[in-house]
């Protein structure tokens, strides 16, 4: 947006050119520091003179100046630079962007550009150049650690896996917590479709494979800037859809009247496992100290004590036992990512264009895992008639994944349990080289029913998806009169995703083989019509009024096929299957809106904005499907009315109040009966219909809302300050907010004894109160060296309020007695089985066994952090920039099933202790009405660690606080003098090394990255890790060349 502004201003400046008669002609080129591109329209003047000359479209200037003069280069939103001529006749200048420029323009709701200064609410902006430095493949993940109040968690280390973004705390007790994504005014889909890939009715959490969320399709190389609208006031014009905030993305455009440029950006990145468990290397597999090939664990004999014997290995050979300390480490490999992009852009008198192509090729940390993405984008504007502009954007993205790991549990292809449970005595190389026998059949890890060889799973049972997506829009705008502009923005986002997961015959758990396919089709159509009126009421008072209508439709369709029992090996064709079960579903939703936005500005220091919107949603009962909500905000630049201060150079107060209505999902009102494709039975054994020739229908598992449902409502207030001291050497931006979502439309989980799983009702409220602070320092600022420090802090308190008749709301059910739940007066928390404690907090031991007593349904802590923060240090020395970011999270809890698996299986380091010795758990036992110290030893350490099974939630729940080196980047922009000889050809060159997720400095959770979330990005639940693939550390090298 800034560049657009730049171009338009260029014309103005051109009109006022004057020529000075001086004694030397100085020429040169002015380029931008961030992208090396020439800047047209820069004012070049002699210090002390009142006028100067502008640079031309190629950034070139020519000015006559005295030999000892000082030239001043100034341009809007760039730092003004003074250069002394010192007898030179050629002076090339690089201007740096002034991030703190008061006239900075941001894109707000509906693509309306506003001066930051005029806003009554906070909008965070991330520039495209920031997210393409470290080149996360998922744009959402690239925002991690960049904005106060924005919390991002990754679902897994899977390629193309999901990232969940929550702004200012979860506002919903159900699944709806994500902000909307808007690209150039088009609302796009960011769903994380979860489908069961087995014939089972219990996909709780991410169903088996992390296929990611669709915002991951956005190509970061096409992004000019991202505005994060955090509060309801900021997003009020989007209505219902933006009740969780909005991520407004503006894509890059060519420059009108700009030179044709070609930009190359190339990144090579390497990923490896951030954290591996610490394993014991003393004990073999077995049970209570006795070797057994059938056990995938570490509860067998001590390896050093049985060196006189041999035991059968997985190949049936009798071997001496030996530990392979690196067997798990060697299972994982270094992942590799190549991202290459090229963009052509330019423009003429009446239009501009930009064409971009980006190719991403990625391999994962496990063998066979691949992602390949091709993104093409086209963005062009044209003035058809005077005052009549058309802009078109088209984006096509094709993403192909394969070999994605299966996570969670209860499915034969689950990889992380298959890997982490490999006994210490198994040679991973031998396992890999011999995953099949001479006849091509699987050499299983163990002969037991859970003994699949992980390499068999990797090489044969692959899961992947192909997603073809097109999104784009056409914006027509017509300036009817100087005071009236009409515009219409129509766009669509369409994708089709084909998923396929195959299981080869011979896989334990699916010995006859099977495969699964699904076709997902999603379409969004959005149209916004706006009339913008400008009017100067008095010379000091400006008015702007926008009236608009909006039409939004989303359609989803899914066809799914599950083929069982394959006749010919490795042939995944439906006709090769003994039985194929098909299911299909679809839904449609529409919202219509009418809105208005009135902005008043007085003398450019006092601003007032009021909006109102009415929505009609197809998902609510007809009698009350219409709802209105207003917002009001004000900004006051008080330093403009105070006497000039030497220490406070800028100060602004802002305040806002907003109310946003909300609807629900399609078809949540009627009580209907659905034809069933199958019933559930454990281990995938459920029968399919027609069964014995008969069909089956089932009633709903959720009691529908019927005609009682009304819209939910969220209101929020926000106060903020923006203070800049000592000529911007110290900056402080702080917001205090409170948002309350009332009358929530909830799918209230019910105990199953009601006959239902849930009931759709209006009930409960959720309040988030918080403080966000961004504090900047510039400790050192000398001509060639600059040091910036930025501190970010965001604290949020989340409080649930429920009516008396609702005791609790389950936000998410997990496995094994664990739930994420909301209770009146508390924050959303993790609940589950806990240790019984006496009045003094000592764990109570059962004297019969020496093991701990347990109690169900106890609160184990909140799932959200108390606060998150970060520190970013940036050092600039000439063209060299070094930046690193440390992130901090304090508070909240995390349940880890990986830890449970490692401990109950006797494989992690600590389980080697005390084996074969008498071990007394230091707790207490009941003695009459009091408690005395326990003296009863556990029967074995295998029994002791058996208590850490997944069913004991507290045993595997940890404080999720951490300190992490999120990102470090070193980049160098070559001075133009280096390629001066090729100046006509090369316009900019920079190189960099960037690392992400580099170092977990402090964590309380053993063996895993605490920054994971098993529940998908569409869920309000978090705080649970369930056999996720480990997350990765990545280091990348980047070259950017502009021609």
């Amino acid at each position, binding site marked *: 947006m800034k560049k657009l502004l730049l171009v338009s201003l260029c014309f103005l400046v051109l009109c006022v050119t004057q020529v000075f008669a001086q004694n030397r002609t100085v020429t040169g080129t002015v380029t931008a520091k961030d992208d090396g591109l020439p800047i047209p329209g820069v004012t070049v003047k002699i210090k002390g003179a009142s006028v100067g000359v502008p640079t031309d479209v190629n950034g070139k200037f020519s000015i006559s100046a005295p030999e000892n003069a000082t030239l001043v280069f100034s341009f809007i939103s760039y730092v003004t630079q003074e250069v002394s001529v010192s007898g030179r006749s050629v002076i090339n200048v690089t201007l740096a962007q002034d991030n703190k420029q008061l006239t900075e323009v941001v894109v707000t709701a509906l693509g309306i550009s506003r001066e930051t200064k005029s806003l009554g609410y906070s909008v965070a902006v991330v520039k495209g150049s920031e997210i393409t430095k470290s080149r996360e493949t998922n744009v959402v993940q690239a925002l991690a650690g960049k904005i106060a109040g924005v919390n991002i968690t990754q679902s897994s280390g899977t390629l193309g896996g999901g990232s969940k973004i929550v702004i200012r705390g979860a506002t919903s007790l159900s699944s709806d917590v994500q902000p909307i994504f808007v690209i150039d005014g088009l609302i796009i889909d960011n769903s994380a479709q979860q489908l069961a890939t087995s014939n089972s009715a219990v996909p709780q959490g991410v169903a088996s494979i992390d296929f990611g969320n669709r915002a991951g399709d956005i190509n970061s190389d096409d992004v000019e800037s991202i505005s994060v609208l955090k509060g309801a006031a900021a997003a009020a014009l989007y209505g219902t859809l933006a009740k969780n905030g909005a991520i407004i993305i503006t894509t890059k455009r060519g420059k009108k009247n700009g030179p044709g440029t070609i930009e190359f950006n190339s990144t090579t990145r390497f990923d490896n496992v951030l954290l591996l468990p610490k394993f014991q290397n003393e004990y073999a597999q077995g049970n209570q100290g006795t070797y057994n090939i059938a056990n995938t664990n570490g509860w067998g004999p001590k390896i050093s004590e049985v060196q006189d014997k041999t035991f059968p290995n997985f190949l049936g050979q009798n071997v001496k036992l030996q530990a392979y300390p690196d067997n798990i480490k060697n299972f994982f490999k270094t992942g590799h990512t190549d991202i290459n992009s090229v963009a052509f852009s330019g423009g003429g008198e009446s239009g501009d264009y930009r064409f971009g192509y980006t190719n991403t090729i990625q391999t994962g940390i496990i063998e066979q895992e691949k992602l390949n993405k091709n993104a093409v984008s086209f963005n062009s504007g044209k003035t058809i008639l005077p005052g009549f502009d058309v802009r078109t954007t088209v984006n096509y993205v094709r993403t192909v994944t394969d070999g994605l790991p299966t996570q969670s549990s209860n499915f034969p292809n689950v990889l992380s349990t298959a890997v982490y449970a490999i006994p210490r005595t198994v040679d991973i190389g031998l396992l890999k080289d011999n995953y099949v026998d001479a006849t091509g059949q699987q050499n299983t890890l163990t002969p037991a029913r859970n003994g699949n060889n992980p390499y068999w799973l990797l090489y044969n049972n692959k899961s992947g998806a192909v997603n073809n997506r097109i999104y784009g829009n056409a914006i027509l705008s017509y300036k009817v009169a100087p005071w009236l502009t009409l515009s219409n923005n129509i766009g669509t986002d369409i994708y089709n995703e084909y998923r396929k997961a195959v299981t080869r015959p011979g896989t334990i758990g699916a010995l006859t083989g099977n495969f699964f396919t699904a076709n997902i089709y999603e379409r969004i159509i959005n149209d916004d019509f706006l009339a913008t009126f400008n009017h100067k009421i008095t010379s000091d008072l400006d008015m702007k009024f926008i009236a608009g209508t909006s039409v939004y439709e989303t359609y989803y369709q899914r066809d799914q096929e599950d083929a069982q029992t394959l006749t010919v090996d490795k042939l995944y064709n439906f006709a090769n299957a003994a039985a194929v079960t098909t299911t299909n579903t679809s839904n449609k939703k529409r919202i219509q809106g009418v809105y208005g936005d009135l902005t008043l500005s007085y003398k450019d220091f006092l601003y007032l904005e009021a909006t109102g919107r009415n929505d009609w949603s197809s998902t609510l009962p007809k009698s009350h499907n219409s709802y209105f909500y207003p917002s009001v905000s004000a900004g006051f630049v008080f330093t403009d009315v105070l006497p000039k201060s030497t220490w406070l150079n800028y100060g602004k107060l802002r305040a806002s109040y907003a109310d946003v209505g909300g609807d629900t999902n399609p078809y949540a009102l009627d009580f209907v009966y659905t034809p069933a494709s199958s019933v559930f039975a454990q281990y995938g054994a459920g029968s399919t219909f027609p069964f014995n020739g008969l069909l089956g229908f089932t009633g709903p598992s959720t009691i529908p809302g019927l005609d009682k449902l009304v819209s939910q409502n969220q209101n929020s207030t926000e106060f903020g300050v923006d203070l800049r001291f000592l000529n911007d050497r110290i900056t402080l931006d702080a917001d205090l907010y409170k948002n309350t979502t009332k009358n929530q439309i909830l799918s209230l989980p019910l105990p199953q004894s009601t006959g239902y799983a849930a009931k759709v009702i209006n009930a409960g409220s959720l309040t988030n109160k918080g403080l966000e602070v961004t504090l900047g320092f510039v400790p050192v600022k000398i001509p060639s060296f600059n040091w910036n420090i930025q501190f970010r802090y965001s604290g949020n308190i989340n409080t649930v309020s429920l009516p008396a008749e609702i005791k609790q709301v389950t936000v998410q059910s997990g496995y*094994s007695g664990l739930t994420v739940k909301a209770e009146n007066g508390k924050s959303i928390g993790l609940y589950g089985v806990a240790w019984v404690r006496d009045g003094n907090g000592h764990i109570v031991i059962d004297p019969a066994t020496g093991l701990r007593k347990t109690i169900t349904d106890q609160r184990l802590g909140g799932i959200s952090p108390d606060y998150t923060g970060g520190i970013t240090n940036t050092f600039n020395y000439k063209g060299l920039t070094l930046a690193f970011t440390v992130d901090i999270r304090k508070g909240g809890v995390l349940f880890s099933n990986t830890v449970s698996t490692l401990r109950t299986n006797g494989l992690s380091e600590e389980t080697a202790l005390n084996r074969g010795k008498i071990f007394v758990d230091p707790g207490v036992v009941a003695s009459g009405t009091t408690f005395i110290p326990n003296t009863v030893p556990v029967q074995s350490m295998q029994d002791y660690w058996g208590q850490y099974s997944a069913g004991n939630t507290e045993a595997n729940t940890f404080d999720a606080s951490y300190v992490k080196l999120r990102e470090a980047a070193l980049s160098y922009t070559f001075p133009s003098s280096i390629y001066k000889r090729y100046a006509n050809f090369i316009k900019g060159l920079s190189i960099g090394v960037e690392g992400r997720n580099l170092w977990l400095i402090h964590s309380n959770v053993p063996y895993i990255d605490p920054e994971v979330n098993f529940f998908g990005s569409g869920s309000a639940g978090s705080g649970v890790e369930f056999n996720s693939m480990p997350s990765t550390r990545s280091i990348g090298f980047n070259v950017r060349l502009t021609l």
Partner: protein
Amino acid sequence: MKKKFILTFSVLTLILALPSCKKYLDINTNPNAAVTVDPKLLFSYAVTSYVDLRASGDLWIPTSLAGQAVMDGFSNPTGWSGGGLDEGEYKIDPLIYGNPWRAYYTSIGNNLKQAIKIAESATPKNNNAAAQCKVILALVYYELTTLYGDVPYTEAFNSDIAYPHFDPQQKVLLGVVATLDEALAQFDPASTVKISDYDLFYKGDIAKWKRLATSLKLRTLMTMVDKDPTQAAKIGAMINAGGLVASAADNFQVPFQDIQNKKNPKYFISEQFNGKQNFFFASKWVTNYLDPVNDPRLPKLFDLPAGQTHYIGIEQGADGDDAINPRVSTSLQTATEPETIFDYQDELFYEAEIYARGIGVAVDIVKANLLYKQAVLESCKFYGVATATATAFSASLPTYIATDLIYNIQYQHWVDLTDRGIDAFTQWRRSGPEGSEIPALTIPIGAPANGLFRRYEYPITNEINQNPNAPKAVVHYYEKQWFDL
């Protein structure tokens, strides 16, 4: 040109931006579901869920292993344990405790409730369909309470009660009886309005349904009578009134099909996890009783290892040796093996017990012996023993006097239920007060010393955590239920 542009632009914009509001939003009807259905469609879904559950890894495997009807073979790699602790040693995943609860209350119970509602509000009123559903619903209540103990009953299945209270087991069992009475009163054999083609049990034979309902009522009273002797009079009255299951043609069962995903789950797991080898070993509690008398059911129930002449079952938690110990027969647990819920010999064993013990009737040892032998004969035939062999075998059984007779009726009844995990488990618990149950099971090797398995623990995730009115203290698997003396 400019005017044309602007005119077209304006018209298009208006068309796009201002569609007719009412019709445009009137799309909230689910195109993939029906607002009304015939009750038979809900009945078939409920019944399919029910038989799948009974034969599944959530019910058949845990109740059979923990109830010691079959054994896990512990360290045998192709046994169910595969070397680790499992349901046999009372290590039961919380999901397994939760799935039957969910199935009974939601996919089975609630669909039956809906079907009853539709049937009773239909014109003409479909009394038979409602009664057919109520019989299955009574089975749901019976199995729920005998599995979990006190469960929600009076406040269950009510969309207006979010947090049902748990009812004492006695009340639930009386509710089972009341539900069956209601069904019996509602059956209308004269009417052709009923579930017939969608009745996988009896194809709409209402006379069979009435006999079944009567027998199920008798079974429920027999489960209660030791704790609540006042039920004896009702039992006596029922025996005298008759109308009970009267032949193997009345057996209440649903077949599976030899088509992928329609196979019996017992078979499915061996096919998909174990190369069609049966996971389970013969229980010594079965073989020790049957082998000495060379019971003709042995080769039907188990596959004898080559070279062996005797059926040597194992203890729970002991290693199964494929050279010595027989596994459950692959000809018994086939893809098409029907799931049996109640059968003729079940009825005969109860009747034999009633006369042997004199429950509501005078003790009649002769009659009891006759019924006992007939029950064993039916059991042999049920498991595929040729009629002549079965008849000869049952005739060869000794005629017992009182105490031995009761012991053998109970033991034979339990053995007959060896392939029906939950029913064997309930039979064992009602067979005698603690310590005197038949057979006298012992704690499995490797299981905690707390006691024998006596119930499913409450599902934490889907009930206890969701229901403020649910008991919060853990009721352990070794704690007795009300009916279990």
